[in-house]
């Protein structure tokens, strides 16, 4: 039925396999439909919420955010289907090119990016400001997974671990310098996730964990104490104010406090158009970082719980694909994507609910923003590709 069954060990996979039926040809038959539905439902809810909650945000253009997010969503969905049909294994071969592209683009914003709020992280394109670090999350996973597979037999375990860490932390450091602390943290987590699924020993993670604790202590306690702060003042305040929001009523703590009030005020079924916290600007950046609070206030626990359930579904299906993958590369990629999505979801929702610091990490598929929506859909397309390829290879087995 398909050509993959007859592939020899070292043959290259066909990038565009020719299938018989239409569904086969589009790769739809072997898509993970729960994953697709979860992703589409999230972006649909995002569009719906933006349409209702941002009507007064842009004077004279009540549908500004609605229209743009719809376009991003449609582009994203198309991108997802395209990637579904591509054999992700191609990316392993392209790892050096992908990695180079990633590092180049996140570097170029320093020179050609436009500055917004003291940070250079995006290129201004005619209809769209493109933020390379968003797509970079996916690129990093694709490239690093390739490096891990490729280097699996080279060097000692310690050398390998150090190599992976360096490969992952280089772009993370570049993004950190933009400065974009939140995205750089996603890079770090994605790197660790790929290493984790790549079999790096537990002991190494223990050491990395210890080093992380030491680093955090250095950044937040020691460096400011000796007068050479590494984080900018607002970054540190955002990171620590959630621990005692009342002390920062007017600054970072204020935003978070307002977000918590908004969410809580939604109660079980939400306030609908009576929502005041998010409608009257008490919650800042509500269409980006605090959209979960908007949903919480407008649609209550039912809305937020629905969204959280979709993310849980998304994470479960992504994790499931790690076990179905026809090869280790797919496992690593799927694991990296799954954990990155989980991390972004948890940090953003936790920030909205006042239990995580403000890091500026968008909520995948919910927050307004073309780069984030596109990148997330492309990542899900890669997951779909892994799923499709697993089915096509006839070697997949159903884990759950």
């Amino acid at each position, binding site marked *: 039925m398909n050509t993959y069954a007859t592939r020899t*060990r*070292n043959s290259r996979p066909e990038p565009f396999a020719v299938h018989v039926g239409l569904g086969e040809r589009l790769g739809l038959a072997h898509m993970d439909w729960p994953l697709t539905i979860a992703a589409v439902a999230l972006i649909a809810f995002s569009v719906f919420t933006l349409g209702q909650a941002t009507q007064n945000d842009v004077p004279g253009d009540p549908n500004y955010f609605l229209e743009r997010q719809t376009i991003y969503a449609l582009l994203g969905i198309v991108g997802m289907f395209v990637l579904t049909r591509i054999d992700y294994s191609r990316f*392993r071969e392209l790892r050096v090119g992908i990695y180079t592209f990633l590092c180049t683009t996140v570097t170029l914003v320093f020179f050609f990016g436009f500055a917004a709020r003291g940070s250079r992280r995006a290129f201004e394109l005619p209809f769209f400001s493109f933020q390379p670090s968003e797509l970079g999350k996916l690129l990093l996973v694709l490239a690093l997974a390739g490096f*891990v*597979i490729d280097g*699996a*037999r080279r060097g000692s*375990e310690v050398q390998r671990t150090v190599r992976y860490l360096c490969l992952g932390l280089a772009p993370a450091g570049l993004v950190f310098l933009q400065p974009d602390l939140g995205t750089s943290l996603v890079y770090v987590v994605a790197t660790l*996730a790929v290493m*984790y*699924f*790549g*079999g790096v020993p537990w002991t190494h993670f223990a050491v990395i964990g210890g080093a992380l604790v030491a680093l955090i202590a250095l950044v937040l306690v020691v460096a400011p104490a000796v007068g050479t702060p590494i984080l900018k003042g607002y970054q540190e305040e955002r990171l620590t104010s959630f621990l005692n929001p009342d002390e920062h009523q007017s600054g970072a703590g204020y935003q978070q406090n*307002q977000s*918590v*009030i*908004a*969410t*809580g*005020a*939604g*109660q*079980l079924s939400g*306030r609908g158009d009576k929502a*005041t*916290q998010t409608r*009257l*600007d*008490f919650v*800042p950046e509500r269409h980006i970082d605090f959209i979960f609070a908007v949903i*919480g206030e407008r649609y*209550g*626990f039912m809305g*937020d*719980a629905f969204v*959280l359930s979709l*993310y*849980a579904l998304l*994470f*479960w299906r992504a*994790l499931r694909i*790690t*076990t179905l*993958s*026809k*090869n*280790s*590369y797919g*496992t690593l990629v799927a*694991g990296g994507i*799954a*954990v990155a999505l*989980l991390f972004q979801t*948890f940090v953003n*929702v*936790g920030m909205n*609910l*006042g*239990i995580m610091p403000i890091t500026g990490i968008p909520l995948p598929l919910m927050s307004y923003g073309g780069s984030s929506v596109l990148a997330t859909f492309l990542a899900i397309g890669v997951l779909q590709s892994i799923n499709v390829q697993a089915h096509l290879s006839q*070697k997949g087995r159903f884990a759950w």
Partner: protein
Amino acid sequence: MYLRNDSKPQGSRLSLRVAVAGGVGAVLFAVLFFRLWNLQVLSGDEYLAEAQNNRTREIKVIAPRGDILDRNGEVLVDNRASLALQLNTTKLPEDPAEEKAELARLGELAHMSLRKVRRTIAEEEEVAAGAPVTLRRDVGFELIAYIEENQEEFPGVSVERVFVRNYPDGTRAAHLVGSVGEVDKEELKEPEFKDLEPGDEVGKGGVEYSYDKFLRGDPGHTRIQVNALGEPTPGGQLVSEPPTPGNNLKLTIDGEVQAAGEGGLGARGLPGAFISMNIDNGEILAMGSNPTFDPSELIEPSQAQVDQLYRDPVLAPLVNRATEGAYPTGSIFKIITALAALENGQITPDTVVQDNGQIEVGTDTFENAGGVAHGAVELRRALQVSSDVYFYLLGLDMWKTNELQEWAHKLGIGRPAGLDLPEEGETLLPDKQWRNQLFKEKLTDRPWSAGDNIQLATGQGDLQTNPLQMALAYAALGNGGTIPTPHVGLEVEDAAGRVLKEFKFKPQRKIHIDPGFRTAILEGLHAAAQEGDGTAAGVFGGFPIEIAGKTGTAERDDHADQSWFAALSPYPNPRIVTIATVEEGGFGAESAAPVVLDILEAIYDKQASAVSSGGGAE
């Protein structure tokens, strides 16, 4: 290492890692769900309340103060709508240089120095941080128009409609009505101001102060919906509770009489004061002081006005000389000396004294005014021609006792008059104890002597009193011994004129005055005012209403003589005491008596033709 990309990763090691990742994910989602449940379902009520509270702001709607009316209902003080220049300091430019430039531009427009602008802001921020600062009240429409046309040059500047006190007759009763101003920090601590907030206006003097709680209304409130910047949102007016205007205060003052007094005194062109009071119930019909001022100048005084109003210790236009002055009174004091001597049995009304023009006590000689000898005089004659020698002798008789001081004290000299205005000055009734105490402290060169009492007997020497206190003494004489409580507050009315409260001022005390003595003194005063060679006959001789009156010419150090006149009218059963004094006005009949005449003419609404200038000697 389990990695072998050519085949599916091997089973158990990967499964463990996936399971651990799944477990971590499950825990994280559980944390989020739990937090969400806690926030929205368990504590939702609290957050909803907080959100409600967040989005509304209460805006106070200022209540206009009540009007101040005279006893006939004529308006002395009302309100007019005015525009106030306000500044929202949070919207000032962040750049210090730009901020300074804007404040300087504003100051120039509002006729304030940059320093004063900054000080005003600092002061208002101290009492009400974050609230808009009222830079200047009562600005002109031209200024407002200019600022609105050049809005971009004045970020944060706004105009608010406020009520400003309006004085239709300018200086009329200026010292009585007082002024209003923002409640200060000390006042806010007092119980009577407990409902007030910084920035609220309260009376700062006169009846505005004493009757503040009636004049002050209750502010209303409008709850409006605001966004996070505190800006009102469209259609967001939620609840509106209209303000309750203050009630009107009707004064005992008769506007026409007041005008007559102010006109008469003003015509003298000298500092002075007058008071006209009902001797039975203490209602003050007119009271004034010269120089005077227009209370509207106090709202936003210019620098020149500040200098003139507040910094001139000689003219001191804000001082109500009728209640805050401190003067010797000259001969109008003699009724007190007479009463003391009569009641103590030193003399009878018919006791005859030989007035040779002067007496000698020890080495001192005390002369009549001008050294005139009046010959044999009894009480009535002594009052008519104002024989000093007669009263010198009474003072000499009583110098070792405290009888003169006791009577003066009983009649209200040297003690608070109980007036319903905050402005009452310090006065002094000199006595033995006072001077001996000073002598002990080496603040004077001699102890109490006969001379001191001789001086007091004719209202000279160290006596420091004011027209109000003298009015009480004359009132008691006129009504037979009742000291009324002087007051200007008559009643409180609502806007429709319904009386809400009538003020009852009980007499302060009663003293026993022998009716015969009273009659004798009044006879003497009547003769002085209107008979023959009476000291004021030149002024009141042709006045159709019979009165009892007494001139006074007080000698003051470093000043020309101060003119006094006290009148009880009508004679012989007086209802009203009227007293005027003119600093450096010369003889009593010369300047004070004509002022009293002006007042009495207004009171009795008679166009009496009195000889205009005083001629009689004292």
